[in-house]
């Protein structure tokens, strides 16, 4: 779809079609691991994780014709780096009506990097209830963990150096542009 025009810096590592295939595979893996869709709740971490969670929900519907509750979980208030950055915008948290108590919650994010966002998400989740289990699905795992965190479902393992940037663009949030690119460092580190 959008891989034809080679916009932006760096090297494209996932095209729009690659992203769709990865999400379809992850949907199969989630259903396999959970033995069906019972008790599943997908919570995306805004902004791009929330879009991916919605797409994953669509993929689950296509695979098994099931309606899995999809929501979003903003972790800004739980971050440990708030005081080291300019004030961040807070995104909406939406927990689907049945809540998370006793559910199998699949957290969805675009890039897994230091693991600190996931730690924040686990804290945020604990304030909302007590899931039976929490799983983690990410589109890209770029390594360099700073905490004992790992993903259960990975779209693509992407070995990177600290100084490289991984840029995920999704049609929903990036003006229709889509794909994952990896670029050498300018000023700032990646966007975990």
């Amino acid at each position, binding site marked *: 779809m959008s891989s034809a025009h080679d916009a932006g810096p760096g090297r494209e590592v996932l095209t729009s079609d690659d992203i769709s295939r990865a999400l379809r595979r992850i949907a199969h893996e989630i259903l396999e691991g959970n033995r069906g869709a019972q008790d599943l709740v997908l919570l995306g971490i805004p902004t791009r994780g929330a879009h991916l969670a919605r797409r994953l929900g669509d993929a689950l519907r296509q695979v098994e014709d099931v309606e899995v509750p999809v929501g979003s979980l*903003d972790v800004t*208030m*739980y971050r440990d780096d*708030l*005081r*080291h*950055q*300019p*004030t*961040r*915008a*807070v*995104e*909406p*948290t*939406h927990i689907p009506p049945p809540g998370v108590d006793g559910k199998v919650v699949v957290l969805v994010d675009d890039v897994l990097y230091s693991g600190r966002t996931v730690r924040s998400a686990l*804290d945020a989740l604990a*304030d*909302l209830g007590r899931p039976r289990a929490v799983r983690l699905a990410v589109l890209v795992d770029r390594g360099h963990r700073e905490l004992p965190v790992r993903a259960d479902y990975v779209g693509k393992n992407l070995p990177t150096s600290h100084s490289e940037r991984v840029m995920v663009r999704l049609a929903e949030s990036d003006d229709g542009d889509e794909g994952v690119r990896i670029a050498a460092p300018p000023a700032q580190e990646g966007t975990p």
Partner: protein
Amino acid sequence: MKHLLSIADLSAQEIRAVLDTAVSMHEVQRRDVKKLPTLRGRTIINFFFEDSTRTRSSFEIAGKWMSADTINLTGKGTAISKGESLRDTVLTIDAMGVDMIIVRHPASGAPRQIAEWVDCSVVNAGDGTHEHPSQALLDAYTLRAALGDLAGRHVAIVGDLTHSRVLRSNLLCLRALGAQITLVAPPTLMPSGIDSWSTADGFATSYDLDAVLPTVDAVMMLRVQRERMSGGYFPTAKEYAVTYGLTARRLALLPEHAVIAHPGPMNRGLEISAEAADAARSIVLDQVSAGVAVRMSILYHLLAGEGNDQ
């Protein structure tokens, strides 16, 4: 943002950012566990030299829900009653290492003066007849929740305008968000110099409430502040209620969709009738409910980010 002293210090973008964050904070308010770790280890002093129910308690609740340590001080019972100056008192508090002083003071401008003395953040929780910015932000939040985007919406602000700090903050805030404003009051309660002010800031004034009501999207009734009046502003309370109160008769003049706001505390039977205060279109309790969420958002924007470290 380090201080919140006046709405005039905020850009429209900053106002919108505070209101947007408040939407997320409102969601926290509906949870079973109302606690965020965001301001752990931060200390906030509520320093109130005037009485307050909702402002002080909602700032305190907002701080506690965000895990800050909050302490309440009043003018009475502090060293001020032993003759210590305001400057020495706030410097003492600042020296203890607090992160924020939330101050209400009867003297207009006191919070800005304090902000010049101390290193920590200062929030104006109402100063004299000057400003009450957190109230204006929660009023704007509630109006936005009821009406949608406020650009082009018509809001009438009615009542004791001379003594109202809520008016000044609300006027600035609603104008920044693009609302059209008409101020309605008896001539004795119109602030002096209102004509040059209204021309400069682009709002209208009127002495005729009945003529304004059919055109509004929201009407905000302000409290008649009898404690600041030495008398002579209107003949009797009864006459004020008939000419400028939101009576049951006047309710019928409002358009179908228009809402009724009042920053509280209400003088029922004076500026607002029980019928209006309890009407389905009254958003008075929504304003109180929004108070905590908006103040959480204010604390977040002032204390959470890096630029706010001392």
